[in-house]
């Protein structure tokens, strides 16, 4: 029985990891081996696929799009953490807004393509950078996660600081910010992944070349040359690796945050 359990876990782990292993392997296959279809018989290593990625002009090419997406999503993440942190503080201080945020949590964002498009068109924000930023400036999920974290901060601590004459600014930056560091990191990684992984939304509201995210860039390349695995895999690996590394660094915090969220 125990032995069957180990075997079962082993098989699942292999299947879940397979696309990652393949992605890493395919990125370094020399192009001539792909063309002959001879991919497993001999081990060979080549950086040719990454060189192909750099052929276009920088900003319109893969590396430019990767940088653009990293800056864009990084900025949005910081904004979400800021608005979320402040809102969580208001909730902690007794603002009667928790039902409002919980209600928003239930709204399926994926389904709001049409009305968001209409709203952005009305505000004349279509095809601008703002269309990729403003609708994500705050997230009810992040507010909720950070509020869960703030709940664990003992009230006496804040009370004592207040008696010493500390205002909101001191409470927020000197006490709550350092105490909530772990939650902020976990929330930040999740917020980053959520925005980074938007697929259809950016295509619809910001389709122009200068605003193309790396996600859209890869998907377009896959449409145009589905058989050209080498560069595709190299792009997939380069766009995925940073996220994997950040996740592995903070994995413990992220999984724990989710577990805490489930208890609440």
């Amino acid at each position, binding site marked *: 029985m125990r032995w069957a359990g180990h075997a079962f876990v082993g098989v699942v782990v292999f299947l*879940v990891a397979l696309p990652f292993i393949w992605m890493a392997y395919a990125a370094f296959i020399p192009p001539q081996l792909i063309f002959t279809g001879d991919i497993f018989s001999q081990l060979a290593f080549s950086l040719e696929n990454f060189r192909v990625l750099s052929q276009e002009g920088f900003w319109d090419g893969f590396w430019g799009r990767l940088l653009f997406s990293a800056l864009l999503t990084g900025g949005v993440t910081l904004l979400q953490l800021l608005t979320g942190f402040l809102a969580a503080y208001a909730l902690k201080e007794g603002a009667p807004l928790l039902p409002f945020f919980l209600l928003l949590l239930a709204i399926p964002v994926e389904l*709001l393509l049409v009305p968001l498009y209409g709203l952005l068109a009305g505000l004349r924000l279509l095809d601008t950078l703002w269309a990729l930023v403003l609708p994500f400036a705050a997230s009810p999920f992040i507010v909720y996660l950070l509020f869960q974290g703030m709940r664990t901060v003992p009230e006496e601590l804040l009370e004592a600081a207040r008696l010493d004459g500390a205002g909101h600014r001191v409470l927020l930056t000197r006490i709550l910010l350092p105490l909530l560091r772990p939650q902020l990191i976990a929330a930040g990684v999740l917020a980053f992944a959520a925005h980074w992984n938007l697929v259809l939304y950016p295509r619809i509201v910001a389709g122009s070349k200068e605003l193309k995210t790396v996600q859209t860039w890869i998907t377009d390349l896959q449409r145009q040359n589905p058989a050209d695995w080498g560069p595709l895999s190299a792009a997939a690996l380069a766009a995925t690796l940073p996220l994997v590394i950040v996740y592995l660094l903070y994995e413990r915090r992220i999984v724990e945050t989710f577990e805490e969220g489930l208890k609440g």
Partner: protein
Amino acid sequence: MGRRSAYWFALPAVGFLGLFLLYPFLDVLRFSTWDWSGLSEPRPIGLENYWDILQDPDFYKSLRITLVFGAMTLLPFILLSILLALALDGQPYERPVKALLFLPGLVTLGGATVAWYTLFSPEYGALASLVPVPRWDQSPFWALVLVSLFTIWRHIGYGVLVVSARLKAIPKTLLEAAAVDGASPAQTFRFITLPLLRPAITYLLVIGTVLSLQSYTAVFLLTRGGPFGGTEVLGYYLYKTGFEVGRLGYAAALTVVILLLTLFFAAAQVRLLREEK
């Protein structure tokens, strides 16, 4: 200093969420009464869009596909979540395996699809050079299986976490007492563990139904609704009518219908499960 002044700190979040989440959510009702392509001047047409949906064969086809997809994905997903959570519980490798299972949900979607595509493509995929791969580019059934597997792959970490959190909440003394009373491991599982896991299973079922009624990103990335419209789930049909065909008013009405369907299914499930108790 009054504590109420702290309430103002919620203003940025409330403002942004009110404008870009709550307002569009309500506004979709207004759009749904329009004949509107996004470029043209909108023309109010009352409830005509809803009337058209009721008579739209593509809508019913899409609804059927969505329900098949939901059943095909949810049952294995929940079963796998329970089995994995049980197999992992208390093992030395529990942490690293859970971490790995969580990873597919976070990594770049476009990159993940590239890996899946080049691996499983039936014509020139890597796997096809070793074993025969079902022609999911020609068979709607296998295409749905592929989307289903991809969806399970992305969310299995969360499913395991939900069941596992519940599993850890079961008092060990309860299981020990059962063993002392002479219950076999199978009996203990059937009569103690499984009933106590119920809330977690209900939760996964409801959340999973909601998500499978609404998700379409995997379809867009892997099959684009094909072959022969065989993977055109409701969400994808919504996207296609709105932004490829350019009938935004009709797509808004579809949004409302999908929301109502979601509400109906979720409520029905919660009710059924409650009655069973």
